[in-house]
């Protein structure tokens, strides 16, 4: 039975650059069509790339394009492994040109590069039209928009592979499409083969976060122990013509592929497990079963498919000002009282300085992560007087100067605050906000071409 092999070398935009080596070695020994994918494009990653391009501060495609592709283009070409990635972000055509240069520098003149374009809704409709749409999740929509990108499915990627591409670059597409694309291409899957579309989507969903299916985001020793986590192997999915999936990882790497790691990833970022909506199929995982068929090999069967929704989801991103954070530590005897006093001083000072933006106070080490913006859990928590505590102040504003004033007040606690304040740090970052809308499937003007 024909089986295809898909390995995932990155599960998010800041993932390791050196994970692909063992995957390429593993794939080189597999008998069948082989693919290496890089998933690097979260909603905010795309919005940030768009923002940087608008401000002339970045190329629009992933700033890490060379870091991911540089080391793999040659070994993949030699081993006959095709690469599929959404590193194109907000500028797929620019990414195609850069990848072309990179290939030439490496002496890979025959490398065929394809780009999938058309996810940018602003190329087919106006800001006004988009601003008038009703969001189905996220914030309300108001101009100016930083970007509006629709989630494309697997078909354009399959088309790029049909053209003979060795490297397929996309912008916004579903993460699962990076895997389903090769499945559709290799098995010539028709639109009504819902079982195979569901299987390819589930395989893609399991692979798209890289090591999250091989023991990362999982370890909780001694309940859930993962061997050699520091050397974790990234995943390989084997997808058969019957739609059965096996998840595994390269030998000699750390991590773990177990029924438990696979179950956690099946439900990761999933809402209704009977209706996981994608442009290609509606996936139902409620009757999926997982079986350990060998060390670090788990078989996944029972994915079911229903027709896809009539609409496509698009992400609209907008500027959301800046987030400012500042921190100061209090340690040793009676640290809690000193940290609380520091917060009290800051509250009074912010009032006097007419700070009007939303501000949150935390004491790290006292219920900070589970808490709400008002510190409800901290107020109810058992007062442990001593500790190694850190006051954190976070504020969001369109006005950088206001955030700077807040940070300076925290800084001045050194001389104006309670005893023993130490370790001041501050940071400022730009923020984007997003909303989702549903658009007609035929609205995007999708093109697939060889560079």
């Amino acid at each position, binding site marked *: 039975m024909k089986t295809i092999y898909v390995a995932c070398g990155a599960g998010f935009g800041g993932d390791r650059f050196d994970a692909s080596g063992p995957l390429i070695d593993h794939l080189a020994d597999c008998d069948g069509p082989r693919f290496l994918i890089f998933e690097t494009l979260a909603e905010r990653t795309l919005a940030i790339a768009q923002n940087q391009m608008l401000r002339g501060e970045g190329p629009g495609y992933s700033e890490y394009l060379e870091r991911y592709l540089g080391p793999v283009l040659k070994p993949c070409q030699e081993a006959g492994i095709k690469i599929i990635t959404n590193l194109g972000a907000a500028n797929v055509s620019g990414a195609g040109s850069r990848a072309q240069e990179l290939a030439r520098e490496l002496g890979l003149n025959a490398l065929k590069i394809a780009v999938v374009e058309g996810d940018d809704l602003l190329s087919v409709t106006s800001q006004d039209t988009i601003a008038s749409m009703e969001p189905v999740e996220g914030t309300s929509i108001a101009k100016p928009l930083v970007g509006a990108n629709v989630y494309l499915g697997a078909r354009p990627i399959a088309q790029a592979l049909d053209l003979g591409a060795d490297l397929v670059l996309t912008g916004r597409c579903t993460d699962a499409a990076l895997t389903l694309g090769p499945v559709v291409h290799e098995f010539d899957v028709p639109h009504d083969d819902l079982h195979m579309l569901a299987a390819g989507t589930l395989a893609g969903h399991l692979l798209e976060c890289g090591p999250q299916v091989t023991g990362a985001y999982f370890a909780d020793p001694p*309940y859930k122990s993962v061997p050699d986590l520091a050397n974790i192997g990234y995943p390989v999915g084997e997808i058969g013509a019957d739609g059965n999936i096996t998840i595994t990882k390269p030998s000699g790497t750390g991590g773990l592929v177990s029924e438990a790691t696979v179950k956690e990833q099946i439900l990761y970022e999933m809402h209704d497990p009977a209706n996981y909506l994608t442009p290609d199929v509606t996936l139902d995982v409620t009757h999926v079963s997982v079986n350990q068929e060998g060390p670090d090999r788990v078989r996944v069967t029972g994915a079911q498919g229903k027709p896809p929704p009539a609409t496509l989801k698009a992400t609209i991103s907008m500027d959301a000002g800046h987030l400012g954070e500042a921190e100061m530590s209090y340690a040793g005897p009676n640290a809690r009282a000193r940290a609380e006093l520091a917060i009290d001083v800051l509250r009074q000072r912010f009032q006097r300085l007419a700070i009007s933006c939303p501000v949150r106070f935390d004491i790290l080490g006292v219920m900070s992560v589970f808490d709400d913006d008002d510190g*409800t859990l901290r107020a109810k928590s058992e007062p442990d007087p001593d500790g190694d505590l850190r006051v954190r102040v*976070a504020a969001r504003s369109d006005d950088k100067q206001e955030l700077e004033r807040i940070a300076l007040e925290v800084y001045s606690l050194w001389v104006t605050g309670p005893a023993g304040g130490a370790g001041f740090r501050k940071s400022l970052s730009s923020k984007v906000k997003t909303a989702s809308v549903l658009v007609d499937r035929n609205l995007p003007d999708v093109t697939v071409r060889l560079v």
Partner: protein
Amino acid sequence: MAETPEERPLHVFAHARAGDKGNSVNISVIPYYAGAYDHLLSEVTEDRVRALLSHRSIGKVHRYEVPGLPALNFVIEDALEGGVNLSLGLDGHGKSLSFLVLTLAVRIPLKFAHQAARLQVL
């Protein structure tokens, strides 16, 4: 008739993973032993999960059943104080909230506890 088991944290019977979508979070709850699934159905309810997050102004809580694995999947709307883009808190993704759910006190027979927890008790 079997004795009612003592209250213990859900953490000894199940593992969990959280993922975000906008301002909502989903949290899977997966028993270490499939035999505990029926107990999870009665012990880990929408109301009890809602109560764990009652300090935040959350929206609807929905529990989906996934008998094939088996597992439960909770979706908690508006749980993330604005989500990854707008939250002032440290965990805008809600990635840590799986462990908040695992603090839930449940009455499940000890035979379904993770071996490491059984060793501590026995």
